[in-house]
């Protein structure tokens, strides 16, 4: 059987990292990435790219932890290499502060990030409205750099990337053996997955280069994440809101909330407002599916629905998706052998 032809649909962090894992695991495959949007126009480009897991109620904790750990370990190695700045990966330390002491003092990921510990009284003095906090060091994946770096590695490995809208997965059946669906929020229209819903996030990206530490309110509503060139201020979590247009009232509200956590932001300059739709689902859809139409089969691997936690678990889910692609290829080889008999 000729080398399997795999199409990855979607070029956000999930699509590109999944393509990368497939190339690493199955070097004899031919991999093509097809997407309507590439960086800087993906949902991933709006996100700050902080490695802090988000609650994912439908996924067992041990799996969330495994995916987070795989992702953290992978990025940690890059962060101390010469490629770190090109890949946009850097360490950042900071604080997660709570107005009400959380039930869980040590979340499941506290031993994966670096130096996790409760904040001291002296540290909390900087946040008079908050009574409890956690200090730790984690990683940040700046976009576009991270996506551009992934694209560059994919091209070097012989992967073709095409800008193209896919309205129906069956369009790909004639040319590809396996289709990997990393369409994020696009899966809603593509598949009619009703479990998938957008959670709109608006963020401000400002120039405030003196900010070296992240600050996050434990309720998830407000955060300040210093990136390489800009600081991401957020945010909102608006369920079922599909609007990609920035809302000025929201901009002011975000800015005010962030300034009350970090007064020096008043001096921030060059504000850029962006909106992304988190592809939210009870759990990530990470599974194989065999579609059938008129006697023809289409092997699909789904990898979408990462909600607010895409960056935190991307490498872990990409590896799992690559493993599932391997199962598909094995199934194809099996059926092609049977066909020969």
């Amino acid at each position: 059987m000729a080398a399997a032809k795999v199409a990855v649909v979607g070029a956000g962090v999930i699509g590109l990292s999944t393509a990368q894992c497939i190339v690493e695991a199955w070097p004899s495959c031919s991999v093509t990435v097809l997407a309507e949007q590439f960086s800087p126009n993906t949902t991933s480009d709006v996100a700050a790219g902080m490695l802090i897991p988000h609650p994912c109620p439908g996924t067992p904790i041990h799996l969330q932890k495994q995916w987070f750990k795989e992702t953290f370990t992978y990025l940690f190695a890059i962060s101390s290499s010469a490629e770190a700045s090109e890949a946009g990966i850097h360490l950042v330390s900071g604080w997660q502060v709570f107005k009400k002491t959380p039930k869980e003092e040590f979340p499941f990921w506290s031993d994966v990030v670096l130096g996790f510990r409760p904040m001291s009284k002296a540290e909390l003095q900087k946040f008079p409205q908050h009574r409890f906090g956690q200090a730790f060091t984690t990683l940040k994946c700046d976009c576009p750099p991270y996506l551009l770096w992934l694209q560059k590695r994919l091209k070097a490995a012989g992967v073709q990337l095409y800008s193209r809208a896919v309205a129906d997965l069956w369009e790909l059946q004639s040319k590809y053996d396996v289709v990997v669906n990393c369409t994020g929020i696009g899966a809603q229209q593509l598949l009619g997955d009703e479990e998938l819903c957008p959670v709109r996030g608006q963020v401000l990206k400002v120039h405030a280069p003196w900010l070296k530490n992240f600050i996050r309110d434990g309720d998830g509503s407000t955060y300040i994440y210093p990136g390489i060139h800009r600081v991401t201020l957020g945010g909102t979590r608006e369920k079922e809101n599909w609007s990609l247009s920035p809302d000025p009232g929201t901009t002011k509200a975000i800015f005010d909330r962030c300034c009350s956590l970090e007064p020096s932001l008043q001096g921030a300059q060059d504000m850029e407002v962006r909106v992304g739709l988190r592809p939210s689902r009870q759990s990530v859809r990470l599974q194989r599916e065999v579609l059938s139409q008129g006697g023809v089969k289409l092997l699909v691997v789904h990898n979408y629905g990462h909600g607010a936690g895409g960056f935190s678990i991307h490498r872990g889910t990409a590896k799992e998706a690559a493993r599932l692609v391997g199962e598909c290829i094995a199934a194809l080889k099996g059926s092609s052998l049977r066909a020969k008999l």
Partner: protein
Amino acid sequence: MRVAVIGAGVIGLSTALCIQEQYQGLLPALQLEVYADHYTPHTTSDGAAGLWQPYVNDHSNLQQLLWNKETFDYLLGHLGSPQAKEMGLFLISGYNLFTHPVPDPSWKNIVLGFRNLTPKELDLFPGYSYGWFNTALMLEGRSYLPWLTNRLTERGVKFFHKKVESFQEMFAQGVDVLINCTGVRAGELQPDPQLQPGRGQIIKVLAPWVKHFIITHSTESGIYNSPYIIPGSELTVLGGINQHGNWNEENSAQDHRTIWESCCRLLPTLQEAKIVEEWSGLRPSRPRVRLERESIHQEHLQAEVIHNYGHGGFGITIHWGCAMAAARLFGSILQEKKLASPPQPHL
């Protein structure tokens, strides 16, 4: 009463401000002047990265520890103010690295969140087996000195661009009190064999992905003779040179190589950083800061000098505590001259 501050680095300007703030109200006749041959951005303070951190081995000098703490607390109090950005003041976290376990520093409870490094963190720094993490402050000279200058100008302090050749020349002009903040060249005004230059060289690079300071230590090489990386608000400072007794302010190609190679080994991604500037300066090194009064008997006058120099590589770290101490010495001078006593009621 004419008071002249000699020197316009962080020590001179902050001492001037401290005295101004505390005594102008009490003494309307106070006339404060600053004399210096170099102003920002050409002072030693302008070259410093601006990280608040005392030496790790400060020989249990309690007085200096208190001045360091006073400075940290003073700056911490200004963090939330609208002035912070203009002052060049911000929080920064980072790493101190050692090749073997060392005792905790005397300043561990002054900084925020001081702790030892975990094994995973040490994996980031091959060759180092022990270290600390803490959050401290940055106070960038290139912003702080102009800020101090503006505050002083607002309050009517006059500045003179002039090299003072002797204390005598100032007293002959009618200056009543001299504040000697001349840093490394204090010996030109009054010989001080304890004061020696600690020559430093730094490379400033564009590396905005670096968010932590990283300071390595080597007992063999001595303080600041081991690579360090300190991210500022715009550029990142690479350093690791401290040559005792070297007065040369020219950049050395060999020192450049030493800094560049050792810092790139410490943080490989620095290889991608663009070099923007290079600078050499002389730390005013002394076993202890000289902060004391000296009465100089001149003809029928008794002239007063307050010395405030010799802050080595920790001038920014200790400046406010010293400025306050110098201001107290000034207050005692006023008391003796009966200028600061409260008004007497008429009987």
